[in-house]
């Protein structure tokens, strides 16, 4: 079996200063609608799971069944790319390290999340390394929510990856080159990655690398079906 980390989209971080997001920090994956944000985010989740780290996937829009089926679809492609023989066992192993928390019909609030994470840690000894948060409406959420998430990241000693929807028609970019909807929030995020679909393929681009002034010229080309890095 091939090594997942060789095809992980997070290879984008190979040239970054810390090589990873790191505990206590927030990271965001930005893309326009339909480019494959959720799939790419799930690959980021797989990057952590293949490192045998525990992960909580938080969905603000989809039911757990839907999220699980997203994971299954992506895993199917991973299985093919990695030439996995014991697919069933690997999946069972990864499933053990992932819990999905879904907040349907605007049930989400930070206190509720904090309580649920506390339950996971205290009641079942599930100590996550990463939170994957899908479905946050960035313009709607406001700065307070992300500051709250930063508090959670520090309190529970974990990293948090978000997905953010960008729009073709909103071209606002701040002085550091960060586009909408992260242009007013970039100080809260340690890593900002953009997923772009062009005629020549699907690419990941690093827009912010922790406190580094100079962004490494890193770009990774992804397979448009599996969203895995092309070697």
């Amino acid at each position, binding site marked *: 079996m091939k090594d997942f980390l060789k095809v992980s989209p997070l290879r984008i971080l190979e040239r970054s200063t810390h090589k990873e997001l790191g505990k206590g920090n927030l990271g965001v994956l930005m893309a326009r609608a339909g480019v494959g944000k959720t799939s790419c985010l799930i690959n980021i989740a797989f990057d952590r799971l293949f490192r045998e780290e525990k992960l909580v996937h938080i969905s603000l829009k989809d039911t757990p069944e839907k999220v699980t089926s997203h994971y299954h679809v992506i895993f199917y492609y991973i299985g093919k790319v990695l030439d996995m023989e014991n697919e069933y066992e690997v999946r069972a192993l990864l499933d053990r390290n992932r819990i*999905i*928390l*879904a*907040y349907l019909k605007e*049930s989400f609030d930070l206190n509720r999340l904090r309580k649920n994470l506390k339950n996971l840690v205290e009641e079942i000894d*599930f100590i996550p390394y990463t939170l994957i948060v899908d479905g946050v409406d960035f313009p709607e959420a406001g700065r307070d929510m992300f500051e709250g998430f930063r508090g959670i990241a520090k309190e529970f000693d974990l990293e948090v990856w978000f997905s953010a929807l960008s729009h073709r028609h909103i071209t606002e970019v701040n002085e550091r080159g960060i586009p909408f909807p992260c242009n007013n929030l970039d100080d809260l995020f340690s890593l900002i990655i953009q997923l772009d679909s062009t005629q020549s393929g699907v690419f990941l681009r690093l827009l912010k690398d922790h406190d580094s002034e100079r962004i490494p010229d890193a770009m990774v080309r992804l397979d448009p079906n599996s969203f895995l890095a092309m070697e």
Partner: protein
Amino acid sequence: MVDDIQYLRNIGISAHIDSGKTTLTERILYYTKRIFAVHEVKGKDGVGAKMDSMDLEKERGITISSAATYCEWKGHKINIIDTPGHVDFTIEVERSLKVLDGAILVLCAVGGVQSQSITVDRQMNRYKVPRVAFVNKCDRAGANPYRVLDQLRQRLNHNAILMQIPIGLEGSFSGVIDLVSMKAIYFEGAFGEEVKTGEIPSPLLHETVAKREEMLDAASMFSDELMQAILDDSVTEELIHKAVRKGTISRQITPVFIGSAYKNMGVQPVLDAVTHYLPSPAEVENSALDMDNGEKMVSLSSDPDDPLVALAFKLEVTKYGQLSYLRIYQGAIARGDNLVNTRDRKKIKVGRLLRMHADEMEDISRAGAGDIVALFGVNCFSGDTFTDGRLNYSMSSIFVPEPVISLSISPKDNRSDTNVAKALKRFIREDPTFQSRVDEESGQTIISGMGELHLEIYVERMKREFGAEVETGIPQVAYRETISQRTEFNYTHKKQTGGAGQYGRVAGFMEPSEEGVYEFINQVKGGVIPTEFIPTIDKGFRSCLKKGLVIGFPVLGMRITVNDGQHHVVDSSERAFFQAAVGAFKQAYLKAKPLILEPIMRVSVECPSEFQGSVMSSINQRRGLIMSSAEDGVFATVEAEVPLAEMFGYATTLRSLTQGKAEFTMEFSRYSKVPESLAEELKLRRRERS
């Protein structure tokens, strides 16, 4: 016989336990004049609802076995199968879904889409059953049909469309507004039998217009004609019905109706919806397997003049003999006809042909394609296919889950001893998920089924219906064994004890099979084992699978390849090769690193959010794996996988943990390897027994 199949509907009523489906059925029977008084499920009059014909059902207020009934509504003939809501009885739900063309999904306006609704919905998807939804109990405190609509969309992924909106809710629920006719509908008379229409109350006018627009938007996706009419402002009721019907039958729309069956409100419009939106048998594609043509899949026609194909989907043994419920897919059955059972090719003569009305019956002389009837005195099993002999078709078998739990029973006295045997014989015929066997070692009778409640009901039925009192043992998990590595065998069975000897050698290998089923591969070349002995070798290996050598439970997932052997012209026989296979199995099995497997259940717990932590902890303590938790308002649904062995008594634990505010369902998910410590314990128990 139904004159025109277009006016026939075969529907089921399925839902979570206590959503009020039996009450809804009771009202339907009342409005269609099949009964002349209304009795509640747990009514004070002690009569019980019509569809709950078993004493036990009346007592517990839950429906245990499906009862079929027939009624007529506005020129349509409707066969209704009432189905159980508890997950332990899902074989009943599965069986009825197989023969149904459509269903009413009953949801509680307070509880919403609960775990069992999700299970039932999954089953309906498996059988491609179009449905209409009925949001019941809108008169209850906390009723919110809009929340249920959202849940239908979010949790069940339905394109759910409101066809009505409520006039008031909870205590002030007084009727509905029909978004098709744009009229208010009220239900008057002692039991809501008088349907009165009126103008839309002005405070609701704005909301009605908005909701109608939403409905039209969704419906117009299925009809260009309707889309054009919307643009021309010339929408008719007929155009809407046609479009919604198309969307519903293709399962791309779920029309949603609201009411309160208990308060006699909203039932008649649901009956109208059944006739308007659910398909007739002619609009449903059914297929069978042609047994004379390598089990090739063939389409059935729903033409009463074609050769007969019918499926026995439910059996009941009454005091007058066996009653077999049949769905006729093609052709017709008349009293006096000869039918052929595809399974054993035996002929039977149709004596009494009946249309069922819960536990009452009506004699009829003929029934045609699409209809559901019952035959008296026909000796068959559930799932058997009947033809008129011109075809040798079998309906694809109904999915039957493996039993996961067993219980030893011992009769309390001699009288009970005889009656237990009779009862078991009957139950096995009625229910393929119920099994019984005699344990060779202990001599005890072991019954197996789908859950504690499932077996409990049968034990109770033995007592009530057969006068057989039994003592029960502790519920036992249905463990399985499998192997984990390829191992070769080469075994010679040789016996010379005077007279003809026995000689047979088989060689090959056993290996794990990913599909989880037993496979036998013959790779013998050059006639070293004569062809006529190969099936016997297969049979020999099969006989060993019934009882693994580690803890004596059945063996799953093994592929046997025989590639060499030897025979003797005089001493080789079927018996010798059978024994050689048994010897080969014993030789290789323990070297193939056998594992013990246990059933893992998919458990879903619904609880108020504040109990999420304790629920997770209780699952964790039971070797459970938490998969997810979904928060929806003030409720949380925790999904987990838990070994069945750890689930005994969970209902009591959960009740005390959550002050009785949580409930759970579980269904079989898969088999998984038991932890080493438990494997050792099971082996020790086995050694102590023998």
